[in-house]
């Protein structure tokens, strides 16, 4: 399957880039004194397989990775996988909440403005979408912090409470970051859905549905929405890339202990193994999500199922 091939290639490129680093990876793993002994270093290199050709090393790394062993961080010495596991649900929750918010707000607004095309409501919503798209997520985050954390003191400016500790606490910490990210999503989903709805409402089967005496609301939600969701679904998948970038920014701003922030600190610490591990993970997630989009397609439009 193409999915697997792309995944393999992406991870290989990352691995290869890491291996081109200046500096000796062996030196990072042994104490300073031992580094002086050239012979010893060379021996270690041979033993640990650093002298093997690139594809071999990659294969070994891949084998380990599949079993969950992504190597150890150069800085902390702890297994990378141990750093990833507790942070994965944090970033995951942030992204899921953002997309959910985007859908819950963006879809009805898109339906509304498509249905009432040209009306004042439509123009207002479209203007809002335009502005929402133009405000960077960190600016929005800062504004939210200023209003809700500093002035009103309703929400904490930074930090994260896990769901396992307190659900309300968790909601309070996820609210502002998710909103900061979701506004752009809402704007994009809304626009795309709106233009597809406008096209769909001109179809003959919508006129047939009207001629049956069905109410406008029924027609919108149960006849027009599904055929118009194809572009939106593709877009949600494509937007994940931007969302990953966004979570990195937002995690920094709100001091959220997620994968993005860890990647960031790894960069500053020049922790190559960590950076590699996280990069691979994020790129792989992106590829997988996009492949999932294809499956969702088939569920939405039965005409596509045949060619599966």
């Amino acid at each position, binding site marked *: 399957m193409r999915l697997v091939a*792309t995944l393999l*290639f*992406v991870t290989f*490129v*990352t691995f290869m*880039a*890491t291996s*081109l*680093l*200046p500096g000796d990876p062996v030196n990072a793993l042994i104490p300073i004194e031992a580094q002086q002994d050239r012979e010893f270093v060379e021996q270690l290199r041979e033993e640990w397989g650093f002298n093997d050709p690139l594809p071999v090393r990659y294969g070994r790394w891949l084998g380990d990775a599949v079993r969950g062993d992504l190597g150890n961080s150069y800085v902390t010495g702890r297994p990378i996988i141990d750093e990833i596991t507790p942070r994965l649900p944090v970033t995951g929750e942030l992204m899921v909440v953002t997309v959910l918010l985007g859908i819950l707000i963006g879809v009805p607004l898109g339906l509304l403005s498509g249905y009432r*095309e*040209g*009306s004042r409501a*439509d*123009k207002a919503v*479209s*203007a809002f*979408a*335009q*502005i929402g*798209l*133009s*405000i*960077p*997520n*960190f*600016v929005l985050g*800062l504004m939210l*912090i*200023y209003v809700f954390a*500093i002035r009103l003191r309703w929400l904490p400016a930074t930090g994260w409470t896990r769901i396992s500790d307190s659900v309300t606490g968790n909601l309070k910490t996820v609210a502002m970051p998710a909103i900061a990210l979701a506004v752009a999503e809402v704007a994009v989903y809304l*626009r795309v859905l709106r233009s597809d709805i*406008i096209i769909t409402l*001109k179809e003959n089967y919508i006129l047939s549905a009207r001629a049956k005496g069905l109410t406008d609301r029924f027609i919108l939600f149960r006849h027009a929405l599904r055929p118009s969701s194809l572009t939106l679904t593709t877009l949600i998948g494509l937007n994940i*890339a*931007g969302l*990953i*970038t966004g979570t*990195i*920014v937002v995690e*920094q701003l709100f001091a959220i202990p997620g994968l993005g922030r860890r*990647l*960031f600190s*790894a*960069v500053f610490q*020049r922790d*190559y193994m960590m*950076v590699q591990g996280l*990069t691979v993970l*994020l*790129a792989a997630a*992106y*590829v997988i999500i996009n492949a999932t989009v294809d499956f969702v397609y088939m569920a939405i439009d039965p005409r596509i199922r045949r060619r599966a």
Partner: protein
Amino acid sequence: MADPTELQPLQEDGQAPALARSLPPFRVRVGRSLWNAFREMPWPTRVCASWLVLIVTAAIFADWIPGLQDPNYQGFLFGKGKTLDPPSMEHWLGTDNVSRDILARVVHGARTSLIFAGGVLLCGLVFGGLLGSAAGFLRGRFEAVVMFYVDVSLAFPALVFFLFAITMLNRRGLGIMTVAVSLLTIAPFTRIARANSLSVSNREFVTAARAIGTSRPRILVREIIPNVYPTLVAYSLVVAAVLILLEATLSFLGIGVPIPRASWGGDINMGRRDIAINVWPMIPPIFALVMTILSVNVVSDWLRGNAASRSSAL
């Protein structure tokens, strides 16, 4: 009246025919059509277009604007200025936390954004456009290789790639930023150029050119590329907004432009530390940033005939 699109024969003295001579020179025609375009815009679009003109002019001519202060002069070190000063006659937008003039920093920040966006766009247009056009025209293995590169580029989220790149290369700065992002940005330009080039290559005038023996590079340059570029230029405007946003984000995170250099994102980041004390220093760069991105989006929407608030003939 004679049909102006009909070919007129050359006059005997070798001069252009009467109709061609009566048209004003190209520069003037472009100027007039820009002005007409401006007059046709609805007022929000006009405001945005004006802002863009203003900001680009300010960015280019920053050094020569009379009275504009040095964005890096920290007066308080010499007992001359105050930090976090509100707007005054001397500093129209006040000073930041190290007593630098905010107005000057905003103007120079525009320059940073412009250099970055302009540089990346140029690379994308030139390399991406060429690569894509050639791929669509020449097909075969060349195309396969190029598209493979495109697919891989698109598989990496930009920020992740950027973080990866600066870790590996262990350097910061406007130059490295521009180069790294250019590498990624070539991909979408290539893709679009290739798609267009595919359809253009199948058109009759290309086949005709081949038939009379025109060499392939010549066809590429004279027939394919001029037809592919309009779409790319339109796309550039969309990409410009994304690039301005990206530069601001990277600088805000501290991994973009190094500190002394003025950058909207970087200034916002610095303002963040004192947000509880004094929120003002962040505001001008935020305004400039949002206004610029918004203006680019609005103007590019309008140019594509697609203004969000336009109603249809339903």
